[in-house]
């Protein structure tokens, strides 16, 4: 197995573990952190492909993803704080009345 395949396997595993965390954990902040883990897996796959192809496209995209991640956190954290202030809990299953 080549190094690239190893790294892509690692990226897939990180993405899948993050997805599992988003589904199974109940703490809102831990779910957010698992989403960050998914994004890190995608970044690793992009860097690996850029490394294989020898082009700068993948690294540019990784750079933009950094910015998007920062913006996502800047929006998500105030929303979480508002929810916690309203329901006095970080348990996601207290927010089921948000369903339509």
């Amino acid at each position, binding site marked *: *197995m*080549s190094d*690239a*395949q190893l*790294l*892509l*396997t690692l990226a*897939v*595993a*990180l*993405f*899948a*573990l993050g*997805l*599992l*965390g988003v*589904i*199974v*954990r*109940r*703490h809102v*902040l*831990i779910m*957010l*952190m*698992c989403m960050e883990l998914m994004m*890190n897996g995608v970044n*690793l796959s992009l*860097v690996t*492909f850029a*490394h*294989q192809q*020898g082009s*700068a496209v993948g*690294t*540019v995209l990784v*750079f*933009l993803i*950094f*910015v998007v*991640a*920062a*913006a996502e*956190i*800047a*929006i998500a*954290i*105030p*929303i*979480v*704080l*508002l929810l*916690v*202030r309203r329901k006095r*809990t*970080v*348990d*996601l*299953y*207290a927010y089921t009345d948000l369903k339509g």
Partner: protein
Amino acid sequence: MIESLLLHLDSLLLYVFGAGALVSAVLMLVLRQPMRVALALISAMVFLGGIYGLLGVHFIAAFQVLIYVGAVMVFMVYVIMLLDPRDPSCSQRFSPLVVPAVLVFLLFLGALGYVVWQGFPALAEAPHGSVYELQRFAASFLTEYWLHFELTSVLLVVAVVAAIAVIGVNRGKT
């Protein structure tokens, strides 16, 4: 012995960093305290930064540590400290969806892992070396991808305005 070890130091470190990132990701799923989960995520990000450095993308490694660990995770740790750590409502670690989620996880991992193991015949191994000069990256960033760069700055402005709006809506109600 030591010479051969030094010769294969790169791939050895790659395995070590990869295993570290994987172990940290698994720890994120099983640890109970949010602060410990945050520390596990930070260690996973640092290991990934090490992998980027080994691949030769040093500026991405630097920004991984600066932006992810330095900004995003410090923000996250700050919010974890802001919330009450003795909140008893989260005594249950996992949601009732554990069994179907693990099944979907295994299916997903199997499908994507199968694709990766098949290999990518179109992607020939590129010549290694100085493909990641910062100069080349910066030039293509500001000539070829200037529109994306500008759109990202617009996105950042929108995010700042939205964060202020979210706080302002709440302030108006109370």
